[in-house]
């Protein structure tokens, strides 16, 4: 009986101690990790889409809640005036989620460009959605009124041959971005106006 109790007590104390230690390390590194993720995963996509801005969109960012998700918006300014906005959405790909950074022109409500941030698609097949600029270019300049779909689904986007599911995943993510932007537009506008001042 004594042995039983000592086993339970030791394991409990050890686990509690370990939990506490991990919580401390995590809360101390969280902000740094967030910045690192931004720098290495999101920054290249944002820089490519918002290429003509004069500020650093990574610094001019704000967060908004939509349902249960928290989305980070990056604002691009030219001469101090906010002109464009970029944020990330996810679509379901062939192997897993595809992260898509979508840039939107605030004045015209049209897509400036899209870039894939993270994906786990087949190298050389689905990965062309990220590596082949011609595919992403199809989204540029489109208005936000109609959703995106591949031609097989009566849409306007030419799917990558051999990677239809990946292409559809990108369209899903782009459509999500469009719905999200329309839904959160009033809140986005207030945040942007705050940034301009």
């Amino acid at each position, binding site marked *: 009986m004594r*042995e039983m109790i*000592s*086993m339970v007590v*030791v*394991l409990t104390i*050890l*686990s509690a101690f*370990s939990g506490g*230690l*991990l919580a401390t*390390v*995590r809360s101390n*590194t969280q902000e*740094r*990790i967030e910045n*690192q*993720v931004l*720098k*290495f995963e999101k920054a290249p996509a944002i820089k490519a889409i918002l290429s003509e801005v004069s500020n650093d969109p990574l610094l001019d960012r704000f967060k908004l809640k939509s349902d249960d998700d928290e989305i980070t918006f990056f604002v691009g300014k030219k001469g101090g005036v906010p002109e464009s906005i970029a944020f990330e959405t996810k679509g379901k790909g062939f192997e897993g989620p595809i992260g898509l950074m979508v840039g939107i022109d605030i004045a015209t409500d049209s897509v400036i460009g899209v870039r894939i941030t993270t994906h786990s698609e087949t190298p050389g097949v689905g990965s062309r959605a990220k590596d082949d600029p011609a595919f992403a270019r199809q989204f540029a300049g489109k208005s936000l009124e109609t959703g995106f779909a591949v031609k097989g689904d009566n849409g306007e986007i030419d799917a990558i041959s051999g990677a239809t599911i990946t292409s559809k995943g990108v369209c899903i993510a782009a459509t999500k971005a469009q719905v999200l932007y329309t839904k959160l537009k009033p809140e986005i506008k207030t945040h942007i106006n705050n940034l301009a001042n």
Partner: protein
Amino acid sequence: MAQSMAKEFTKGLWAELPPFRLVLGLCPVLAVTQSVENGIGMGLATTFVLVCSNFLVSLLRTIIPAKVRIACYIVIIATFVTIVELLMQAFTYELFLKLGIFIPLIVVNCIVLGRAEAFAGKNPPHLAIADGLGMGVGFTLSLGTLGIIRESLGSGTILGNPVFGPDFQPFTFMVQAPGAFVCLGLMLCMMNLIGKK
């Protein structure tokens, strides 16, 4: 005391060199040694976990009940692995992306649990630290050596710097999985030949 510590430290460098003598921890040895940087990064992460877990296991060796010792060891090891993972994400994010799943997998690395069970659980803390450090350094050097061989032959570079001049045709077999097995086999063979004399 210093003498016995030195003895425990040096045994990990040759007589009980983990991957080549004990043939333990082969999963990361095969998987991450395509380049010197990956190999050494993995080795250092494992060393940190080894030293910390050896120290704590040895410190608690009289308190931990024998029947739940493996569970306790795993809790201790997993805690330190998670700390390493968080620290790598915060400070060396690029390396973390390259090593990916192999960082959390240090938890199940035979060397770490093996040293806790075979050494740290029976010896005082200062010897346990020396043992962990020796094993860790030996492991790091082994991974570095394999990395040098595979990266120089397979990509023609060491730490990203070209070593063979512009006419070198990379022997890509060496940076693929089969090359890892062949290279490890030759290393084991060499170690045994040298050891026989």
